[in-house]
């Protein structure tokens, strides 16, 4: 069998590769069967290699799909790495939208500096005005998170007026937040009022006027002076009664002790006793009072801020309905 298979083997190879054999040899039925078997084998090998090679390799599209899946599953870290891989090998710039996606992952991972950098890249390559506008707002949001209200304001001032009411409202909202964060309440009031309806405007007015009154009542400078006149008064005024009484007793005690020392010894001795202790408790007392007032205003600011937000949220829901 081996001896008989030798001549047709080389001939069949030449046939497959399209070369005409120079010397035609007689083809026996066994040869024909062999050719068929070999052809079948060749088909199987070639097709299977074609079928299985793509599954073994990971091309850019498959990698993108995998990254998308990781993102949707909430595996942001893996998604971030694989999206970067896709972008790194994306020579045809097919996946430019990934810059914004990567930025959003950084945002979710609280890496706001990187998020800003990627939003910036996404903005540069984006052609659609509305998306560019949205990306700027997202950058501003990252700056809020970092407490860079001035940077955010700078970003928002650069935005052109947009025909979309939704985007314009969003911009006003962000402007309001910026000014509120910078303690510029009049400007903030103006921007917030532009977002809500007439009923909402009244509520916003009330909130801001109440907040202004609150600021006047607990003005840190005023509270500090109160504690300077009567130790402990500023603390009690800001609601820290125990701290106020404690401060009053301490300073009174030191004063009484200094008076007794002065009577028994001399004025200099009295002053020496008084000076260090009195300074320690007296200055500490009015500094505390000032800090309490600042803290009280901050707390009120947070409360007003959340109330404004719920007001805007309600208005948005009403509009959508």
């Amino acid at each position, binding site marked *: 069998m081996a001896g008989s298979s030798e001549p047709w083997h080389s001939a069949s190879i030449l046939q497959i590769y399209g070369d005409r054999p120079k010397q035609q040899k007689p083809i026996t039925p066994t040869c024909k069967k062999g050719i068929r078997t070999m052809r079948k084998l060749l088909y199987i090998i070639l097709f299977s290699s074609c079928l299985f090679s793509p599954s073994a*390799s990971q091309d850019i599209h498959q990698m993108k799909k995998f990254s998308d899946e990781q993102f949707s599953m909430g595996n942001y870290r893996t998604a971030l790495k694989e999206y970067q891989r896709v972008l790194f090998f994306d020579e045809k710039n097919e996946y430019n939208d990934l810059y914004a996606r990567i930025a959003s992952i950084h945002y979710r991972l609280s890496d706001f500096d990187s998020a800003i950098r990627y939003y910036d890249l996404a903005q540069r390559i984006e052609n659609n005005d509305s998306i560019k506008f949205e990306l700027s707002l997202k950058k501003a949001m990252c700056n809020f998170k970092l407490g860079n209200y001035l940077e955010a304001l700078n970003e928002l001032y650069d935005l052109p007026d947009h025909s979309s009411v939704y985007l314009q409202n969003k911009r006003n909202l962000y402007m309001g937040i910026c000014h509120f964060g910078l303690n510029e309440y009049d400007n903030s009031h103006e921007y917030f009022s532009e977002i809500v309806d007439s009923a909402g405007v009244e509520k916003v007015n009330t909130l801001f006027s109440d907040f202004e009154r609150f600021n006047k009542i607990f003005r840190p400078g005023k509270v500090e002076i109160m504690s300077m006149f009567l130790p402990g008064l500023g603390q009690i005024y800001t609601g820290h009664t125990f701290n106020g009484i404690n401060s009053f007793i301490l300073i009174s005690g030191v004063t009484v002790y200094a008076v007794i020392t002065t009577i028994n010894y001399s004025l200099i001795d009295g002053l020496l006793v008084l000076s260090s202790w009195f300074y320690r408790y007296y200055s500490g007392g009015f500094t505390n009072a000032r800090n309490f007032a600042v803290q009280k205003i901050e707390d009120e600011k947070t409360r007003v801020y959340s109330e404004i937000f719920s007001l805007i949220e309600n208005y948005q829901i009403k509009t959508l309905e």
Partner: protein
Amino acid sequence: MILSGRKISITATIACILMFSAVSAQENLLDYDNSLKFARYLKSTGQYNFAMEEFERLNFHWPQDTTISLELVQTYRLNRQCDRLDNSFELLRNNIYQHHSLPAAKEYLAFTLTCKSESDRFFDISSLLRPHEKSFYDLSYYWVTERYDSAFVYCNENRDLIMSNNPGLFRLTYNFENEKYKSLFKKMGRCYRVLPLCRFKRLCIIQGFQ
């Protein structure tokens, strides 16, 4: 029969060529070259955690590749993963002792210095380097492990070598040593900068006249 068979074979060949070309056009992003490129990109952008993962994957698939192990250790160092110091030695061991790779030896020494680790094998590995490099690493070792007396002694013993190759480190070591012998008054007044005598004394010490 032969003709029809030939036609089929040509068609099959063309089809297969097309399919192969389609398959070969797909770039495997996880192959050696692409993974290495991407890992280097991650390292260069300061994403050391991701770079580490990528190099570790590469090292798993190609454990004999000395470039990968070297870059992996470098990434550990840049990420200050001092818990991987021993592992790094294992990764570089063959590279250092069998292939006598200077970059690998330097990388391990640099990693040890970064971690301020007091390793027994430090001087063993530094002895493989050229003398001026060895003196730099050895002196640095004394500095980072806060053995200032040893640093001064070593500096004295290898004065010429260190002074010619690392004058900055040489001056630093001597100045630091001199601080110990200064009186409180001198330290407060920084008199050596004002009085010529003091400057002269310091110069004498540096020049080795004392």
